[in-house]
Structures are given as structure tokens and as C-alpha cells.
């Protein structure tokens, strides 16, 4: 089973990289781009076949390592 994890900065946490991307897009002539927020996408192959157990495993991975919950949120999608 594949787990796809999106890690994003929480609302209210400044994202200087997102801001830099926003400015670079404007400099390239892409108008109408509002706020840009940058995050991480992590894809995992999981041996566990039971979706509920797999999700619980990945949740724990997110809390312990993949995300820093002081500043980041995470979202998990399971496939297959």
C-alpha cells in the first residue's frame, strides 16, 4: 500500500520560501498569484495491508518524525 503525506506549514506561520517563490513568479510575469505556501510531499510504501492500521502507522510516523507539529500540519492519503 502507498501512503502519500503532505506536510504544510500551519496558518499564521510565516513561510519565507513561499514568499520568495511568489515574488519570483511575479518577476516572471505571472500576474494574479496570491499567497504561496511551500510544503513537502512524502511517498511511502507500507507493508501493512489493513487501511486503518496503515493509517495509524503513518499518523505515528508523522507525529514522531515526518512533521514538526509545532509549525506543521500533515495530511495522509492511502492508495492501493
Amino acid at each position, binding site marked *: 500500500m502507498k501512503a502519500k503525506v503532505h506536510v504544510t506549514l500551519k496558518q499564521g*506561520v510565516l513561510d519565507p520560501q513561499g514568499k520568495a517563490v511568489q515574488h519570483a513568479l511575479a518577476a516572471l510575469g505571472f500576474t494574479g498569484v496570491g499567497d504561496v505556501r511551500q510544503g513537502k510531499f512524502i511517498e511511502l510504501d507500507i507493508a501493512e495491508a489493513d487501511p486503518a492500521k496503515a493509517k495509524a502507522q503513518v499518523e505515528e510516523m508523522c507525529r514522531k518524525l515526518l512533521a*514538526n507539529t509545532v509549525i506543521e500540519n500533515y495530511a495522509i492519503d492511502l492508495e492501493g
Partner: protein
Amino acid sequence: MKAAVIVFPGSNCDRDVAVALKRVTGHAPRMIWHRDTALPALDLIVVPGGFSYGDYLRSGAMAAHSPIMAAVTAQAAKGVRVLGICNGFQILTEAGLLPGVLMRNQGLSFICRDVLLKVETSASDFTAGYNAGQVVRIPVAHGDGNYFAEPAVLDRLEDEDRVAFRYCDEGGAPLEAANPNGSRRNIAGILNETRTVLGMMPHPERLADPLLGGTDGAPMFRALAAALS
């Protein structure tokens, strides 16, 4: 004072801090590889600067879960002093020994230069060699030094006198212009609840010898040696 320096793959200030410690104690600290799982009886553990695990995922995130950190956490719980410098500070926050997180610098650039710091408290074994309010010059060298914590956490740090250092101007004012990285409330270093763990982004070990152009970092190591010997 029995001291140890934890060495991770990518640590690069471990030897600098070992030299600074040897200057005040007369003997070299133990160098402990991150794969070790046990620590000898110690008075001080230093988690040094560098780029442990190449800063993969987040600065300090991998090192915080390396085998030796369980022993570091257990010793910290017993009151053994723990000093985290730069990457060491990042590791201590990721390991949950200090609150908050060090984010990418607000200006996105890696900053490597001397900064001025106001010593906010002398009430710790780390800062007892300074006077509260004193301004010292210490170098920083980091890309992820932007200290962030929720306002309630910051309030608590201030109420409990746990902000050790703030970025400041020559007069000691914590102005925005004196803040190199966007840290909340100009915070450069903090103590844990029991004042036995200090994390700081600046590098006192890099200015602890006259040959290096300054000695403002030396009082930290002298004070630790005096308190723990």
C-alpha cells in the same frame, strides 16, 4: 567537570567546543559517536553545531532520533547539564528537550557573522559568568535560526526568566534591525524549566580564545567548569 561532546555525521563544531572545554578544564572531553547507546557518568553534555544528517527533512530532525539521544534525554532528566549550540539547539527542540522550533531564516540567506547578544539572565550554570543585561559579541553561522514558538510559549519563557540571550544593538536594545534571522522576540537562546538545558544559535566556542579575535564566549565555559567541578 566531566564533559562529553556528541558527534553526529555532519557535526562540524565538535572539535571547536572540545578545545574550548579543554581550555577551562585542562582535559579533553569524551567524544561520543551518535550510534553509541550509553553515556558514562557526566556533568555536561554538549550537542555541537554542524549539519547533522545533512539537515535532511528538517534541521536536527534525524539526529533527534539517533541512538545516543535516548541516553542524552535520560541524563538531562536527571539534571545533567546539556548545552546545544546551533545545530545542537535545533536537535534539542526536535527531541523535545526545549520548546519551539528553529525555522528557515526570514531572509532565506545563510548568515555567518558576529552578532551582538544581550545576556538576559545570569541565573543558570551556563550564563553565571555574565551579568544580566551585558552585551556580548558572539558569531552565528546558520540557515535555520529563526526561533518560533506560540505566543503562550514565548510568554511563559519570559515569565520564567528562561530567555538566556536576545539579538540586540550596541546598547542592548532588542531591535528588529538587530535581529539577523526573524526570531520571535529576538530570541537567540533559551533554558528549559529546570535551567539545566540551554539551547542557543550563536557559537560561544568560536570566540573563546584571543587568537580567534575575541573571548566573549569564554565565560560560558569557565562558569560551567566552576559550577560543575
